[in-house]
């Protein structure tokens, strides 16, 4: 677990350094994620490796980490009351548009590629 967290922080740190140093528009942790992915592909560690177990544990409680920024909502009561229509309307409809466009485009492209090659993917349970 300790080893795992340490490696995650090392990859985040290298990601942040690259983002700052090369002035990339990409956030450091995302670069860290891509670097760790490459490292895992090359090294192929066993399932009991610290970095795999540490990651699994951290991700099991991913929502916990969003609690502090989420609590920030309480400071915006006045704005939310005053502009509730553009906020809820904009948020809900554009969320729906983004979800539908992304999901349907991927589905369509997979279907075109696999045409005649049987059903695409699994059914939802």
């Amino acid at each position, binding site marked *: 677990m300790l080893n795992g*967290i340490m490696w*995650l922080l090392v*990859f*985040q740190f290298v990601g942040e350094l690259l983002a700052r140093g090369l002035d990339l*528009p*990409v*956030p*450091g*942790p*995302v670069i*860290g*994620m*891509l670097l*760790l*992915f490459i490292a*895992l592909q090359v090294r192929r560690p066993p399932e009991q490796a610290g*970095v*795999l177990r540490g*990651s699994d544990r*951290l*991700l099991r409680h*991913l*929502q*916990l*980490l*969003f*609690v*502090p920024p*989420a*609590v*920030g*909502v*309480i*400071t*915006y009561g006045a704005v*939310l009351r005053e*502009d509730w229509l*553009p*906020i809820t*309307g*904009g*948020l809900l*409809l*554009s969320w729906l*548009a*983004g*979800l539908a*466009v*992304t*999901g349907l*485009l*991927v*589905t369509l*492209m*997979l279907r075109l590629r696999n045409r005649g090659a049987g059903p*695409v*993917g*699994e*059914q*939802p349970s």
Partner: protein
Amino acid sequence: MSDVQDLLRTSPLTGVLLTLVGYRIGLEVKRWSGNHPLAQPVLIAVLVIGPLLWLLDLDYEEYLNGGAIIAFFLGPATVALAVPLYRQAHHLRELLVPMLVALPIGTLVSVVSGMVLVRALGGDRALELTMAPKSATTPIAIQITDQVGGIPSLVAAFTIAAGIIGAICAPAVMDLLGIRDRRARGLAMGAVSHGVGTSRSLHDNPTEGAFSGLSMGLTALATSLVVPLVVHFLR
């Protein structure tokens, strides 16, 4: 001011403990409800912590003394999303082209529709700029908003709301739309509901979770490139 009050206000212990207790209650409610989609632990935690802060007469800044310690781990958790992706890497090659086409288009649709809708429904320019990056994960959306002139702390509320909406209703909406492929479902979830949605996907299905995490990362990247451009053209 009493010593107790002083401890509550200044010690990081308060924020850390409130966060853990709120989340723990959220997990219990989720279990009691038999995994009802509405019972997202993060949502319940906010409903618990908000009134507690009011009762204890603490403001958000004081809560963040401890809250920031928990939020710090969003960084390594983002890096950790490489692991489910690594386990699903065999799916990746086939998905490369669909992903590289659909995610930038999906991002563009999110950004443009968010801005246009806010304007159409009577919001001002600052609100429009704050809505633009709401599909990116919270820390990145904050950076982008700051860069284009929106309200950085308000965008945190918008992204979290987008995440919670996704965790609650994205799977049902995708069923309705006929999006059944696990990889497509994951990519769509990550594109609009970042880490909060990804946490739901990880619980639903490992393939969905892995692709949601990947999509979240790529969407953050796409959003940081698309928002300044769209803001420039959509005056």
